C-alpha cells in the first residue's frame, strides 16, 4: 500500500475521546512519523459495540450504517482500540442480510479497518526495529496486556513482540496474559465483584513483572485496570501501545503517573 497517497482516517472511538485523548494524539504522531497523515472525520461517534453486546442489534446496525457513511471516502481506517476494531471487522457482517447494500458496505468497511499496530505491521509492512527513536528509549520496564477482542482479528499476543522489537525499552512478559482483565463493557457494572476479582488478578500479575507501566491495547481495559489501581493506591501508569511507541520515538514526553 502506498502510504503517502492513500487517504487514512483516524477512527477515534467514543471511549478514547472521553477517557484517553493522549492515546489518540500518540496515534496521530506515530502515523505521521511513518509518513501517513491521518484525517479526522468530524461526524464519527460510536461504532455501536455497547448496543451490540447488550442485546440491541438493531441499534448497533443503525450505527454500523453511519460508520460506513462516515468512513466511505477513505482507503484505510485506523484505530488505537482493538476492541472497536474487532466489532467492525468481525461483528458487523452478521447484522445485515447477505447480499444487501448494507452488507456490502460493512464488508467493505471491515476490509479497510485496522488496529494501529496491525496497520503498521501488516499494511505498511513496517519493520518495528526501524522505529527506534531519536531519544534514548525509556529504560523503565513495561509490560503489555492485549485486549481479548484482538483474538477476533488474530492479533492477540502480537502487541508485545512488536513493541519489544520497536525498542520500547524493557518489555516484560505478562504472566497469564491470555486471561481477560475483567472489563467486558457493561459486564464490569453488571457483575462488579467478578470483574474486580479478575482485574485484581491482572494487577497482581502486572506487579509480579516489576514494571510500573502497563500497555493495554484497549481503552476500556485500560480504564478498568487504571481505575482499580487508583482506588487501591497502587502506582501504575496505564498507556496504549500508541503512547508506548510515541514515547519511545520521543514524540511524546513521558510524564510520571501520580497516584492517590
Amino acid at each position, binding site marked *: 500500500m502506498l502510504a503517502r497517497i492513500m487517504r487514512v482516517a483516524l477512527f*477515534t472511538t*467514543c471511549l*478514547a*475521546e*472521553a*477517557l*484517553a*485523548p*493522549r492515546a*489518540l*494524539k500518540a496515534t496521530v504522531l506515530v502515523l*505521521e512519523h511513518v509518513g501517513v497523515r491521518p484525517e*479526522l472525520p*468530524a461526524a*464519527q*461517534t*460510536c461504532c*455501536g459495540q455497547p*448496543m*451490540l*453486546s*447488550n*442485546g*440491541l*442489534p438493531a*441499534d448497533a446496525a*443503525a*450505527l454500523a450504517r*453511519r460508520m460506513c457513511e462516515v468512513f466511505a471516502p477513505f482507503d484505510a481506517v485506523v484505530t488505537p482500540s482493538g476492541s472497536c476494531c474487532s466489532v467492525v471487522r468481525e461483528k458487523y457482517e452478521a447484522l445485515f442480510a447477505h447480499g444487501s447494500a448494507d452488507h456490502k458496505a460493512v464488508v467493505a468497511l471491515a476490509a479497510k479497518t485496522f488496529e494501529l499496530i496491525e496497520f503498521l505491521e501488516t499494511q505498511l509492512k513496517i519493520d518495528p526495529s526501524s522505529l527506534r527513536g531519536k531519544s534514548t528509549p525509556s529504560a523503565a520496564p513495561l509490560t503489555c496486556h492485549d485486549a*481479548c*477482542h484482538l*483474538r477476533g482479528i488474530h492479533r492477540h499476543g502480537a502487541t508485545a513482540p512488536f513493541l519489544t522489537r520497536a525498542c520500547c525499552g524493557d518489555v516484560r512478559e505478562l504472566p497469564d496474559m*491470555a*486471561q*481477560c482483565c*475483567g472489563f*467486558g463493557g*457493561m*459486564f*464490569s*457494572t*453488571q*457483575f*462488579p*465483584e*467478578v470483574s474486580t*476479582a*479478575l482485574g485484581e488478578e491482572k494487577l497482581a500479575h502486572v506487579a509480579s513483572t516489576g514494571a510500573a507501566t502497563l500497555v493495554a491495547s484497549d481503552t476500556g481495559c485500560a*480504564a478498568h485496570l*487504571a*481505575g*482499580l489501581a*487508583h*482506588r487501591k493506591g497502587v502506582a501504575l501508569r496505564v*498507556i496504549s501501545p500508541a503512547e508506548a511507541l510515541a514515547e519511545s520515538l520521543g514524540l511524546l514526553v*513521558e*510524564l510520571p*503517573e*501520580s497516584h*492517590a
Partner: protein
Amino acid sequence: MNELIAPKLPFDMKPRAREAVRDLKLQQFVGNATHLKDTQRGGIFGRDFGPDYDDLRTVARDTKQYALDHLDELLERFIENAEKSGAKVHAATTGREACEIALEIARAHNAQGRAMSCVKSKSMVTEEIGLLPAFEAAGITTLETDLGEFILQIDGDAPSHIVTPMIHKDRVATAKSFVRELGARYTEDPTELTMIAREHMRGLYRAADIGVSGANFLLADEGAAVICTNEGNFDLSVGGPPVHIVFVGIEKLIRGARDLAPFLKLLARSGTAQPLTVYTSFVRGPRRAGEHGGPKEVHFVLVDAGRVGVLASEKRDLLRCIRCGACLNACPVYRKVGGHSYGSMYAGPIGAVLTPELERAQGNADAGLANYADLPRASSLCGACYEACPVKIDIPKFLMHDRARLRERGLSPKSEGHTLKLWRWLAERPVMFRLAIRAVRLHARMLGQREKTADGERGWLKSAPGPGAGWTQSRDLGIATGESFRDWFANRENNTSGGGR
C-alpha cells in the same frame, strides 16, 4: 435433585457469584485447576498437531454438524443396528419419561418387590433428567462409581464441572468425608484414598442389579455407544450387573466408527490434555451365546429433553458440544465463580447458553431464558471459550443472541436499556455526541479528584450514578480533563496548514 444444580426458578446467579468470589478455597482450587488444564490443553495440541489443530477442529465441527443435519436418518440406522445386536432401544421425549422407562426396566426384574441397587458411571444426561432422585423414590439405591462423583455423592454435594466434577474440593475434604461416611482411617494420600473407594465399591459392583451409564458418542453404523473414562468404572458397571442401561442425548449420534477418530483425538486432549482417555469402551448388545461376561440385557434410552427444540432453533450449533469442558477451563468468569454459580449441571460458557434451553428450565417458549436471565450476561465476551472449543461453537455469538432475546422480552434491566437507547440517539447526532463527551469531561473536572498525569490532566470520580455505580463500588473512573483530542487536532491542523509537521 440437588438444589445446587437444580435451584428454585427463576434462578438468581448474582448472590452465588458474589459468595464464590469471596471463597478463598474455591478461588484457589478452581483457579489453579482450570489454569493448569487450559495450559496443558494448549501444550498437547501444539505438540501433537501444531498448525493442523485448526483443521482437525474444522473436520470435527463439520462431521458433527453433518450428523445433526441428518439426525432422523442416523437415529433410524442406530436403532436398527442396535436392535440387531439384541439391545433394546427406547425413546424419551422428556426427562420424566426417561426415568419412567428405567423404572419400568427395573420393575421387570423385580417381581418380588425387594430393594434394588444400581452402579452408575458418570453421565451428565442422568443429572439433567434427575435419574437418581427418581431411583431413590422407587427404592433403588445408586452408587456413583466415578471417584469424583462418588465423593460428591457421599457429601451430598453436586458436580461443578462437566469433566472434573469435584474441581471445587480437595484431598483434605475427601479424607474427612471418607472417615465420616466410610469409617476409613484418615489419609490425604491420593493412592490410599483411591484404594479406600475401590474396596468400598468392588463388592457393590458384584451385588448390583442394574448398571447405568451415559455415552460420549453413538455410532449409527454399528448400533453402538462409545464411553470414554479414565477409571475403568464403566467397564465394571457394565460387566457386573445383569442389566445395563445407557442414557444418551440424541445429539451424541455420529455416522459410525469411521467418523470417530477426530473426536477421540479431540475429546481427551481438550478435556484433560491426555492423548486418549485411559479406557475407550464400546457397548453394543447384551452378552452373546458362548460369552462369559457382560449384561444379559442392554437398553439404550435416547433422550430428547429439549434437544429437538434446540435443533430447530438458531442455537442448533450448541448440539455439537462433546462435553469436553475446555470452555470452562478457559473461561475467566468460570474460574472466578465456579460451577455452582450457574445453577445447572452445565456450568461455564456452554452452560450459560445451554441451560436456558434444557427441558427442566422450560415451561413455555423462552421460559428457560426468563428462568436463567443472568446467565447470558455473566460473560465479558472475551472469546476464550470459542478459541478453546474443539467443535468451534461460537459461544460469544450465542451469548449475544440471548442478550437480544432478553432485551426483546423485557427481561433485562430497564435503566440500562434506556441508557443504551440514549447513547444511540446521541451517536446519530455528532454535535450532541461531542457535547455529551464534553459534559462528562466537565463533570470530572468539577467533581473529580484532579491530577496531573500522563494524559496531561485527569479527574478521578469516586462515585458515579446509574450503571456507573457498579463501576465505582471498587474502581475510580479516570476521565481526561485537559485539552480534548479534537481541539488538539484542530489547533495542529491550523498551525501546520500547508503540509509538513
